[in-house]
């Protein structure tokens, strides 16, 4: 037992280091002007990029607001559709079921840029190109395979038993779902929300092509600075990007915790 705990601690420590060390490097680079070999620490520090981040040409708060709103909406829509799809596949039998399961994985099979350019033409024809609705639609398409897959597993594991029980006790289908299945599905719903949020939040090429640059997100501002080679500025933006995504996860987590406490836990 002791040995296993040592091993798991080691594994945990390695994993944590792999995640935290690059973040530390980002923190350093965001305030670095020049850091040349073989200096251990930067030779010249500078607050230039933080000034640019907070007071520069882009309005950071507006960018954060629109990115989080878009990601949140994509997460909600994708999870809702995923939940319905999962129930259909996990709890019912119908002809062509395996075809449906395959069909929702299709967006994963097509490379992102190909998908973006192709869907752009279609959205142009129906007038949704360069609009938020168009971008939302494309983000949902990108995250739906993950939502559906996560929720199908959870729904199948939980089964329809609790709802049947509730129905026997006189609950209508809606009551039966909310009181019977939903609490048990919550962990899966949280995973689906987080997954679709981060997928939407980090979309670059699809947002760029479908949104035509008119729909502005943090990722859209961040990538040109990375390509432009300004390491300090890219680091500042990357920190803002990672930090804000983490913050949203914390909020999701808090919601679920409160929800579970309210239900008395399962």
């Amino acid at each position: 037992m002791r040995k296993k705990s040592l091993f798991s601690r080691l594994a945990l420590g390695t994993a944590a280091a792999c995640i935290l060390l690059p973040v530390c490097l980002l923190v350093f680079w965001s305030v670095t002007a020049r850091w040349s070999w073989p200096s251990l620490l930067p030779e010249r520090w500078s607050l230039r990029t933080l000034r640019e981040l907070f007071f520069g040409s882009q309005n950071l708060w507006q960018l954060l607001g629109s990115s989080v709103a878009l990601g949140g909406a994509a997460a909600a829509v994708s999870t809702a559709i995923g939940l319905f799809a999962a129930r259909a596949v996990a709890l019912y039998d119908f002809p062509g079921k395996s075809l449906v399961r395959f069909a929702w994985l299709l967006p994963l099979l097509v490379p992102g840029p190909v998908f973006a350019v192709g869907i752009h033409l279609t959205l142009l024809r129906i007038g949704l190109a360069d609009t938020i609705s168009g971008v939302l639609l494309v983000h949902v398409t990108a995250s739906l395979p993950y939502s559906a897959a996560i929720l199908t597993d959870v729904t199948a594991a939980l089964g329809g038993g609790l709802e049947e029980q509730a129905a026997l006790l006189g609950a209508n289908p809606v009551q039966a779902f909310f009181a019977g299945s939903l609490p048990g599905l919550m962990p899966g719903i949280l995973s689906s929300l987080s997954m679709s949020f981060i997928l939407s939040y980090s979309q670059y090429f699809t947002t760029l092509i479908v949104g035509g640059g008119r729909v502005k997100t943090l990722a859209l501002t961040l990538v040109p600075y990375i390509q432009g080679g300004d390491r300090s500025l890219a680091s500042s933006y990357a920190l803002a990007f990672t930090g804000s995504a983490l913050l949203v996860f914390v909020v999701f987590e808090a919601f679920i915790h409160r929800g579970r406490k309210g239900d008395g836990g399962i």
Partner: protein
Amino acid sequence: MKKLLAFILALGMVLALAACSGKDGQPASLSSASWEEIVDAAKGTTVTFYGWGGDEDRNNWLASVAAPYMKEHYDITLEVVGMNIDEILAKLAGEKEAGSASGSIDMIWINGENFYSAKENGLLYGAFLDKLPNTEAYIDTQDPETLNDFCMPIEGYEAPYGKAQLVLYNDSAVTPETPSSAQELLSYCQQYPGRVTYPALPDFTGSAFVRNIIYEICGWEQFQTMEADYDTVKSAVEPALDYLRSLNPYLWNQGRTFPDSSTTVDAMFADGELVMGMSYSPYGVSVGIENGVYTDTTRTFLFENGTIGNTNYMSIAFNAPNPAGAMVVINAMISAQLQLSQYEKLRNLPVVSPEKLSAEEKAAFDAVDMGEGVLSQDELLAHRLPEMPAKLVPVIEEIWLNEVVGK
């Protein structure tokens, strides 16, 4: 299913109509409108300007100088959208294929091969340069460099925005020499083996550097009228290929691989991994010194026989929703005032002709402090060579890949 499709299509049409209704009040035909009518029509509208968004200083300048200027003088809202030129052209080509009469892009920042392909594929609005009053007022309309973008006649399809010129830079505290010719560069590389390289083609700067080497070895005149044929070009540049291959053993990683982009080369120089770099921004070194990225002893230099310079331009998209507004903005961009501001804040070589400036304007340009480690405008322009025809550029890039890398 059919009903659903019909509904979606109908919805699309309604949305498209709603999108179109925003551009009332434009003159029916811009080509016959007077300048006053165009300025009037542009009042209260929004103009979108699409171009590369990776330069923090330019983004800031557009947001804090150009946009307020347009608002104040013409009541135009200038919306700047950062997008790579490849993606802009892909988007326009898609819109063209979909038959979209009204797009979302008004102005584009463009030049060279991209201008060539955009013009060939009908992605541009058409001739407008002669309509702008500031063309006559500030631009030298006889200057072949302005009239030809990589040897492609611009025919009024685009207006000059700024000038670039290839420069070399190194740190006098690390290497006292400044190689002023291809031959001196070879001995410089031999002296500092493994610490010089250039960006892999088709990087913009790497490609210009190789063309500059070709000019050094083979002269520049013959290329101005050369056919874009692989074998013709290859036999013409053979001596330069020999030179580049002789350089390889002394380059970073023995010339087996090259850094992916000019920004990587800049970063490798800043990190001390390289002793020399090259840039298309002639005043990039002074900006680097001010930001603390480069050491104070970094300085710019040129080849004695000159380096390639080119002009970058602003054009209008074929389906621009607001061409009148775009013309007004472009006209303002080539005014002495905004060119001076670009020169001051962005250290961008201006496109206005010195002969057409008033004494005051000329004094204002001369008074600009270009910072440390750079060359004067006169020095740069005295060592400026014209670009090759745009069609030769991809051919040379292919030849380089086949004949130089790892050879």
